[in-house]
């Protein structure tokens, strides 16, 4: 460590110290990739995060040095460096931080050489282009185009780049002409350090819809248990009564207990049985009288 210190110019030394302080003063430290984010958007993001999280941009070498000097498990963050990294400090928990950063993402046009974050689909339908070289450009990237009513029309919906594939120059050009913005641009959280552990994006992405479903599912189970075990609660007593009544009716109808309350159900059941047999008989040549079918 002493070795590093001696060789660092003053401003670098200060920078490293500032990074170390940031890490020590916040429970959560994230690594984000700033690569390809326009400066204007970085400013927007900073503004959106103000009061919640602080973005610290620096050279990767200096961040690495700070992490090395601190040592311990936080240094594991180094393994998640990618592109042009920046640190993000917050007092929020890492899940919340991940969610916040996802929310700051916006859609941008694709640049040649970028990787498609999802299948890029060009929908069929009319365009505003007049006939010209554009038709050839479309065809070169596999988009079937025709001229219709003096305008270029895309004949069928096409997936031009699959998720994970590189977007080449020609495709990028066509997409930009069509105004398709496939890229998610924003601070991508590479990893977050929290209380001795490094969390990856896969661990941090929470599916709220799935969570709501689990809640609903758990509530159903509780409802079922309460009714099936006949444990009355304010919420379920109505259903429990209903169940008991249904059971009693079922038994009564099934066994043919001729009680006033269910005699109409029994009549209905007999009538349905008659109809079922009548229709089966009809299918085999027995003429039903009109009354039967009424």
């Amino acid at each position: 460590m002493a070795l590093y210190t001696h060789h660092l110019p003053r401003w670098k030394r200060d920078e490293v110290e500032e990074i170390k302080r940031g890490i020590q003063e916040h429970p959560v430290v994230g690594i984000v990739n700033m690569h390809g984010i326009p400066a204007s958007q970085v400013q927007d993001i900073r503004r959106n995060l103000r009061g919640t999280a602080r973005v610290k941009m620096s050279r990767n070498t200096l961040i690495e040095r700070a992490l090395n000097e601190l040592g311990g498990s936080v240094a594991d963050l180094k393994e998640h460096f990618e592109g042009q990294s920046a640190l993000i400090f917050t007092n929020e928990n890492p899940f919340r931080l991940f969610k916040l950063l996802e929310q700051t993402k916006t859609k941008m046009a694709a640049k040649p050489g970028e990787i498609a974050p999802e299948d890029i689909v060009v929908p069929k339908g009319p365009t505003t282009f007049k006939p010209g070289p554009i038709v050839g450009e479309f065809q070169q990237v596999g988009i079937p185009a025709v001229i219709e009513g003096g305008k270029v029309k895309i004949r069928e919906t096409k997936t031009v780049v699959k998720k994970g594939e590189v977007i080449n120059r020609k495709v990028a050009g066509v997409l930009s002409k069509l105004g398709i913005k496939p890229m998610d641009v924003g601070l991508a959280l590479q990893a977050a350090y929290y209380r001795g552990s490094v969390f990856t994006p896969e661990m941090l992405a929470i599916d709220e819809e799935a969570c709501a479903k689990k809640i609903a599912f758990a509530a159903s189970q509780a409802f079922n248990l309460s009714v099936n075990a006949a444990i009355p609660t304010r919420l379920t007593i109505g259903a429990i009564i209903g169940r008991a009544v249904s059971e009693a009716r079922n038994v009564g109808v099934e066994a043919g207990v001729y009680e006033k309350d269910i005699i109409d159900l029994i009549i209905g059941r007999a009538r349905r049985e008659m109809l079922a047999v009548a229709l089966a008989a009809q299918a085999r040549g027995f003429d039903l009288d009109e009354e039967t079918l009424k």
Partner: protein
Amino acid sequence: MEYIYAALLLHNAGKEITEENVTAVLKSAGVEVQDARVKALVAALEDVNIEEAINRAALAPVAAAAPAAAAAPA
């Protein structure tokens, strides 16, 4: 369900549903008739409009099923 079939048979034939008639029909089919069940049946049917019960039975299930489906996505 024999007893109710006998009753509905009588109803369809335009005959009154009395203990006597129900018993006769059941016997004709070789059923060992239990008086108590006949009595209970006739008593239960006393205040019932059979025609209406039949029509309700035919209509109700279909009608009930439709709104139920609609409620599902809620």
